[in-house]
């Protein structure tokens, strides 16, 4: 990993928790290899140090304290990929340390106490006895987090799922050794059986850079101070994320609580002038879109025009037209839908609007749908879109519908989780299966109004079933719809269109940025 690359992409890397974790790895690696500290003239050569350490080991063997130190293979040229600073030397981990497991402590033998117990994954509880009586370096041997390195307090119990690390205390700085062990990423050396386990033998042959004695201390200081800064940065980044969410909530709150036209304008103005501060993730954009839809269906997106014909008249005209079509035998008999009671009305609408039922203002064409199985479609491949509950799912060589229709998903999990819009407009020539309702309207603009409306409101009161959610025709027709005068429908739909395309652009850009971020971090 090239340091100059890291510095170039520094802002991207330090923008996420993931990136900061990578940064820590990078810092540790640099420090352990002496790249963040300066040479000390009077320091002893690391080669000399290594000899001393090996001597100590041999002496211990002679006295019978440890087994014969295995002869570790000499380091070959190819293994020395990184150049080491002057005075340093490469060695094998086994030259510096030897490990041995702690003592078994089964759960039923454990007694509540004050002595911390270290197991395979680190601190795992408390006991009333210690089997080690000095600060030690413990390496987890067994378990999901094996390879983890800790310094324990003075009195501690180390189980047989962890290693106690032995090394010449007067020749190696304890904290330096811990960082060194951490930088070696011991978990990489896990044997591939069902239970992750680290074998002492395997880790002994890992190559390690040995620093000169005095520099060891400076390395520790450098790591600690840089890590402290990274920790602080992480803390602030987390705070920033929280701030982001709060801005979201505040912006939504602002929009939703605006009572007058003026307040509404002011809140939008505030949001627009600080747009990129408030909306910085794709999810934010989705939230905003939903908020805007909400405003639209409450008549707060555009000004009402008192000169418009009230929507009630429009409703009457639509009923009359449907009756006429029925008499001309173009459509089935319009079903009589239940009266709307006062307490059913979900919210107050502006003057000139009317509440009605979905079935009153649409012409249902479900009877014309023809489902075609996947296998059958194989032989029907063509250029006409084939629609299902969530949109185009295939292309076939024939069509059964022509012209604009509004399609609304009939079933599927999407009805509840709404990962894609439930209502959408199809135009041209196409095929629809029986998982989406198909409706026409008297005026095309109403179709777009209904698309926005259905996508804005909560459909839970109309959807049946939890395992298999379903919105059947009866319930669909019963849905309460707030309808503005025709002119206003035009204005609202137009406005929504403008805003939505801007939002889609923005969302794409943010998605792009996100994937760049991810890419950069992954290549580190």
């Amino acid at each position, binding site marked *: 990993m090239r*340091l*100059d690359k*890291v*510095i170039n992409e*520094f*802002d991207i890397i*330090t923008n996420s928790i993931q990136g900061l974790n990578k*940064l820590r790895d990078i*810092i540790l690696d*640099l420090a352990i290899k002496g*790249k*963040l500290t300066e040479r000390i003239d009077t320091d002893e050569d690391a080669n000399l140090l290594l000899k001393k350490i090996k001597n100590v080991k041999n002496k211990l063997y002679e006295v019978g304290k440890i087994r014969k130190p295995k002869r570790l293979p000499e380091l070959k040229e190819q293994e020395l990929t990184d150049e080491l600073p002057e005075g340093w030397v490469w060695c094998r981990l086994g030259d510096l340390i030897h490990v041995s497991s702690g003592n078994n402590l089964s759960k039923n033998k454990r007694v509540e106490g004050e002595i911390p117990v270290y197991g395979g994954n680190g601190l795992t509880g408390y006991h009333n006895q210690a089997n080690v009586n000095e600060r030690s370096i413990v390496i987890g041997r067994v378990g999901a987090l094996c390879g983890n390195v800790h310094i324990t307090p003075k009195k501690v119990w180390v189980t047989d799922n962890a290693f106690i690390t032995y090394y010449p205390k007067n020749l190696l700085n304890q904290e330096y050794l811990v960082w060194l062990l951490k930088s070696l990423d011991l978990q990489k050396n896990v044997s591939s059986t069902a239970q992750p386990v680290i074998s002492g033998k395997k880790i002994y042959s890992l190559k390690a850079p040995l620093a000169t004695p005095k520099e060891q201390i400076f390395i520790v200081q450098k790591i600690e101070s*840089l890590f402290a*800064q*990274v920790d*602080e*940065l992480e803390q*602030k*980044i987390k*705070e*920033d994320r929280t*701030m*982001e969410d*709060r*801005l979201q*909530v*505040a*912006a939504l*709150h*602002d929009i939703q609580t605006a009572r007058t036209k003026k307040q509404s304008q002011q809140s939008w103005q*505030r*949001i627009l002038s*600080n747009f990129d*501060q*408030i909306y910085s993730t794709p999810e934010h954009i989705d939230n905003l879109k939903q908020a805007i839809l909400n405003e639209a269906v409450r008549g707060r997106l555009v000004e009402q025009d008192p000169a418009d014909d009230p929507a009630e008249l429009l409703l009457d005209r639509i009923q009359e037209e449907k009756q006429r079509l029925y008499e001309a035998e173009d459509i089935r008999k319009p079903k009589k839908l239940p009266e709307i009671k006062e307490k059913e009305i979900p919210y107050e609408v502006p003057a000139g609007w009317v509440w009605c039922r979905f079935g009153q203002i649409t012409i249902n064409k479900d009877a014309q749908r023809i489902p075609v199985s996947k296998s059958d479609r194989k032989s029907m491949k063509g250029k006409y879109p084939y629609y299902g509950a969530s949109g185009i799912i295939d292309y076939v060589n024939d069509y059964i519908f022509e012209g604009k229709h509004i399609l609304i998903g009939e079933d599927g999990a999407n009805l509840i989780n709404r990962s894609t819009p439930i209502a959408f407009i199809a135009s041209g020539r196409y095929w629809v299966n029986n998982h989406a309702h198909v409706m026409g309207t008297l005026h095309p603009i109403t179709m777009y109004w209904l698309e926005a409306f259905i996508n804005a409101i909560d459909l839970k009161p109309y959807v049946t079933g939890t395992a298999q959610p379903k919105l059947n025709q009866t319930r669909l027709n019963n849905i309460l719809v707030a309808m503005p005068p025709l002119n206003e429908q035009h204005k609202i739909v137009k406005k929504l269109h403008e805003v939505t395309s801007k939002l889609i652009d923005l969302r794409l850009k943010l998605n792009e940025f996100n994937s760049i971020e991810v890419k950069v971090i992954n290549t580190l």
Partner: protein
Amino acid sequence: MAIGNVVKSIQDIMRKDAGVDGDAQRISQLGWMIFLKVFDDSEQELEMMHENYASPIPQKYRWRTWAKDEEGITGEELLSFIDEMFDRLKNMELDENSPERSFVIRDVFEDSYNYMKSGTLLRQVVNKLNEVNFNKKEDRHQFNEIYEKILKDLQSAGNAGEYYTPRAVTKFMTQMVNPQLGETVLDPACGTGGFLVDAIENMKPQTNSVEEYEILQATVQGVEKKPLPHLLGTTNLILHGIEVPKIRHDNTLNNPLTEYKQKDKVDVILTNPPFGGQEEVGIEKNFPSKFQTRETADLFLVLIIRLLKEGGRAALVLPDGFLFGEGVKTRIKEKLLGENNLHTIVRLPKGVFAPYTSINTNLLFFEKGGSTKEIWYYEHPYPEGYKSYSKTKPIRIEEFEPEKKWWKNRSENEFAWKVNIDEIKDREYNLDIKNPFESDSEYYDIDKLLLKRSKLNNEINELRSEICNELKKTLT
């Protein structure tokens, strides 16, 4: 006549009497009369339960003898009779064989005085009192309420930092401390007995036998230094079924701290110590020098810590001044937090003791032993629409429902937050910590948030450059 009017009528009658001057004397006058009647009514019950019951009051002085008959003695004859009665009762010769109840009688009459100068009016008052029958449950219940009203009115006569603690507050504190049958409960500044009555009511449902009821009787104790509250407190306990109220007429602070031994220690302490008042010179010498102050409430706290058994529980009312005060207060707080677990502070809004004082008060709950690791704070809000409490709109027990729900299963919310002991030590034991929860308007203020965020971003960028520069150095 409806009971509510009884007291009013009595007070009207007394106003006509030249000898009774002012609210304090009126209440004092009513005090011993109510006591005698209540005592007599309780004796009626005892006579039904114990065949050999003998009254500590000589027959001719018992209420049933001279007061009950509407047409009984009146005028001058009544006046001299009353004087004689007082004389006999307060000078009763008692020894270790005398029934405990006699001591109660003697104590009451030692401190009481007959102010009324007109025997006729006295007879009118007596007759009015007879309209209430304390053995009828509904009457007793209603009378309790009236009695409490009288006790509340006593506040205007108070002048040494003593305030009748609103029932809602005493009830809440008692319920949370939850004294259990068998535990000794003490109020070392019991006043008119509000906490003790609540403790009795809390434990009564746990008594299922005569033996258990007697345990209840023996374990509720109080100390009160002023005669009138002492009398009223005694009466209050009798009204609630305590045959021999254990309220000592004494100043708890008057004894050297060291004289309180293990046998004096109790399981539960509930109290509202007088604050703002100053004790007489010299009383602080009863306390270790580092806690010597003349501020009554502070001395009481040191005393309470001493009087609790290990593991004992206490709840007390203290003003804001204690929370942020320094000097001796700091040392007391250090002791409190170092040797006890002060687990909860409920902060009450202004006006709980209106209209007699508007200072801010707090309810402190702690357990003796161990040490405090963290304190939970709860800010009690005004009910919807209230800007303050008042005589006509006092604090009500229903308002404490949220606290009760939250008590056993605590989490931080709009009203509750916790503070770690380290932070408190950093603040040098200033416990006056405000609710960190932001109100709606602050929470949703976009401009404020943007400002905060841009500050934050500056800090982030600074940190980034620092780290980056460190790394850059290695390239050169």
